[in-house]
């Protein structure tokens, strides 16, 4: 596996100019995520409208993979309801862990920027980097659902 399969242009673009960096004002949920192996920290803030993620932002610093992953994630999560988000989480996690075939992630097709992270599967030590923001976001969704008693 070549290095450029991991560091694809889309990933580098998001790393250099991340989207949705910052803190959502009047956020419903704030989650601090941490990668205990490297000490990278991320803060994800979420605002919901009914069951839909109305806004999501992140702050923190980290490697190219973790920062780009956070950026692409926020773009793909915004506007989705919690069921759709959980489905996307599942598909993304399986994809970067290499636990699935190409056609097992129907919501991440080749036109979706999330597909750029397929290369991570060949670098098992970097899976945690790709999942850092996602795990924090997922915890945020769970907390929101618990709040509503779902």
């Amino acid at each position, binding site marked *: 596996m070549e*290095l450029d399969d991991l560091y694809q242009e889309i990933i580098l673009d998001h790393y250099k100019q991340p989207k949705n960096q910052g803190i959502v004002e009047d956020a419903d949920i704030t989650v601090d995520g941490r990668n205990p192996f*490297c000490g990278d920290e991320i803060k994800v803030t979420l605002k919901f409208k009914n069951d839909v993620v109305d806004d999501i932002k992140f702050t923190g610093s980290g*490697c190219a993979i973790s920062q780009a992953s956070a950026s692409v994630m926020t773009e793909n999560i915004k506007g989705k309801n919690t069921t759709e988000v959980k489905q996307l989480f599942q598909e993304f996690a399986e994809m970067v862990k290499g636990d699935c075939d190409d056609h097992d992630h129907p919501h991440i097709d080749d036109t979706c920027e999330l597909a750029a992270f397929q290369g991570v599967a060949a670098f098992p030590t970097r899976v945690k980097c790709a999942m850092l923001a996602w795990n924090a976001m997922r915890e945020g969704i769970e907390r929101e659902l618990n709040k509503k008693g779902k």
Partner: protein
Amino acid sequence: MSLAETISEPLNVEEIRRSFPIFNYPENKGLIYLDSAATTQRPIQVLETIRKFNEEYNSNIHRSAYKLAERATAGYECARLQIAQFIGAAHPHEIIFTRGATEAVNFVAIGWGNKFLKPGDEILISEMEHHSNLVPWQMAAKRNGAILKFISLNQNGELELEALDDLVTERTRLVAITHASNVLGSRVNVKKVIEKAHQVDAVVVVDGAQHVPHARVNVEDLDADFYLFSGHKMLGPMGIGILYGKEKHLDAMDPVLFGGSMIDDVNYYESTWAELPWKFEAGTQNIPAVIGLGAAIEFLEQIGMERIEAHDRSLTEYCLNQLEPLEKIRIFGPHRQRLPVISFAIAGIHAHDVATFFDSRNIAIRSGHHCARLIMRKLQISSTARASFYLYNSKEEIDKFIRVIHEAIGYFSRWN
């Protein structure tokens, strides 16, 4: 050849490498292993010793009256003697086998700490500690109402030992300090710390996990109360650590694990403890690892710790001299007085990305906080890339490492 010449003769790295099967394994062809600070590779002499135990005389020690067990017991206790001699302990029964250096610290924090720490007592440690010599003391302080105080780390990566006069007080009961940093390579003048601590009768625990593999240690000369290290960082097997303690301290403190082998007499409601060292060695021990560690020490002694230290120093200086002029590279830690551990950063690039780049060029380096978050906090970084060397690393490997650094700077330049 005179003795002096033998001692100063450079290591024959090529010959040494032939003893390490991992470097000759086909899939590892061309691998440059620069992560010995995390764990070292094992020579065939160690692996053979373990194989022999398993195939020829596997049996439990100190229990049975038959030849296999006699051989196993002799091997186990012989390793203890070797280790005692290796670090200059006064008695072999001052050497306690543990699962690792971490467990050794916990033995002192629990077995000594719970018995002797009182509310208001002060525990002095440093900002440069590995989590294994920090978290057990946080817990010991909490359990016993003691207060944790810190020796500061300066931006050069050295401990500010001048502050000891103020930090060591009549309330200081225990000082826990590293002999050398696993992140910065900085060597610590622990003798000075011990002298100061002993003026107020404080007990000193030294973490020698990084130091012991690279330079001769003499615990009697240091006058350390406790000194601990791990086997797998000095060519030995994983799962074995050493806790050295002065006889008087080991006698006074409580055992931490209770059960078989560590008892003297057992009755319905009370038991009494075995003599040193067995008081601390409950249950069946990692016997092949102990015997394997003995073989590792023999290997090191045959080469000579002084020669190993000189080799490590020359590689480190050779590497630092080439890294320092590079504008994009930041090096952490002191230039002199350091072990073969070099933490660095490429400007603007995260350590994980740097390590992945090196891996793509078949060079194994470490990235992360190296279990030393206090150092990261102090230097205001989240992680570093770290290259560490040992007796099987060559100048040619350093040359390749430097070439890859240049390549990496080029590769990452398009990221900024």
